[in-house]
């Protein structure tokens, strides 16, 4: 059985910026434990001599020509924003009081 704790899940939720409820943390702790037990077997065959594959089809990095293309207008870019001032996205304070 894996060693996943509620404290760990709460920490991960903070890293992932999801304000989980205590009930969610509790259920996720046991679900993650069971999932991790199942997936941990990858280390059985992942020996040092096996190279990692990050991408299924080998490709070179791709650059486009440095020429202006079609881009969104500010109006289009802001159209789906929860809040904006007509030319910029509007958000609440970036820093809290203790910062």
């Amino acid at each position, binding site marked *: 059985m894996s060693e*996943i704790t509620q404290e760990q899940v709460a920490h991960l939720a903070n890293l992932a910026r*999801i304000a989980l*409820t205590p009930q969610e943390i509790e259920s996720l702790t046991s679900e993650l434990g069971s999932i991790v037990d*199942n997936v*941990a077997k990858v280390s059985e065959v*992942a020996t040092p001599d096996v190279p990692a*594959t990050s991408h*299924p089809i080998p490709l070179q990095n791709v650059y486009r020509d440095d020429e202006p293309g079609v881009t969104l207008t500010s109006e289009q870019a802001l159209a789906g*924003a929860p809040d904006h001032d007509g030319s910029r996205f509007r958000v609440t304070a970036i820093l809290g009081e203790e910062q």
Partner: protein
Amino acid sequence: MGHHEHELIRLSAAALAEKLGSGEVSSVEATKAHLDRIAAVDGEVHAFLHTAPEASLATAAAIDARRAAGEELHPLAGVPIAIKDVIVTNDMPTTSGSKILEGWVPPYDATVMVKLRAAGLIPIGKTNMDEFAMGSSTEHSAYGPTHNPWDLERIPGGSGGGSAAAVASFEAPLALGSDTGGSIRQPAHVTGTVGVKPTYGGVSRYGAIALASSLDQIGPVSRTVLDSAMLHDVIAGHDPFDSTSLTDAWPSMAEAVRRADVKGLKIGVIQQLDGEGFQTGVLERFREALDVLAAAGAEIVDVSLPSLEYAIAAYYLIMPAEASSNLAKFDSVRFGLRVNPPGGGTVEDVMSATREAGFGAEAKRRIILGTYALSAGYYDAYYGSAQKVRTLVQRDFAAAFEQADVLVSPTAPTTAFKLGQNTGDPMAMYLNDIATIPANLAGIPGISLPVGLAREDGLPVGIQFLAPAREDARLYNVGGALEALLEQAWGHTLISLAPDLAPGEMAAAQEGAV
């Protein structure tokens, strides 16, 4: 719905395209027939999250006008198509099945949409899916599940259950799907339809809301192999907006179907996917199909993929790791939902409250799992090891393709399970993907097509073929040949056995009541 409409919706896309080309049927008639069908049956099926009747009829009328003016149009011009809601459309809301994007109308079209519109297809609506394509049953959609047209109590597969159910219930002849671990092929399997995951990079993903970028692929959904091939030909090709897009020149997939012939084709049966854990009726139909192929001159050989037992484990590390990164963009700033916590807070507090309210349970589960797999101290053991397993799976495939031109397996271990049956056990749900995820890990193409109904439950069974990367045409060859052989033996299509969802329709039409 009139008698004429009832027949129109049952045509394949290829057959409908011929009638459109000859002028026997107009695109407005064809589009209206499918919209009427949606109105009649989608209350029960719930394949669609959004339809755009007026806009699609206007698009259809424009195609009819161009055709009437003598313009040379693409063969599929005027044919209606359903779009999985993971694909952004600049004229319809795009939610990816999530509350966090409810009502969002993207400011641009995905490249596949640009291509569909250029070819004159008629997008009629957006189809339901598991939230951010995370699931095998559509039960993780924030908008409620889709129901399998063969048995409304059962799952239509996932994540693209909406697209598969739309074609299976004759609401559209064609649909687009996306396949990260089987989300096109497994829904095809459980709904008696056809679905293809192209070679990674064969179809642009620009404008597909990313789940796992090294695995995702857009592909066709239909009722016949030829229809998928024709749609594949429309959407394939290099796209400078997708840096993983391949620059290959692709052969015509439709030609591969029309010339289908399995004589001398070596077909490798994946030993690890031909027995334990598979439903009896699934294996029965699978082996019958192999006999049919052998009788037609194919050579059936056994192949082994020894690393397969590690593939699901690797997949359920790589996919959530990439998903946790991709879903970071839903931050309450640029698009989608914003939830302000009681008493206000910093932008990070708003972000956390938004993501708590906007993401469903499965999305949260995978984001947390992915964050865990990528965190310091665990990265090498989990994500790093999973990437090594990926190499092993690729080596297994390379060795298998030395012995066979295509590989074959049942598409999934069981027929459609009941809605709710697996929702309490995420791992049981994940194990459904055993046959489909290896192709995504290796980037190779796969097709699922129907091979009959399981004896014990009367539900559809699909067969999956896999080909080496860039050899998608081989799938259309073997799929087209098997479909023709089976339909010849049966004397009908499999989908014609699906229950009539609106039995009043025909009777009313015959009485002249509508």
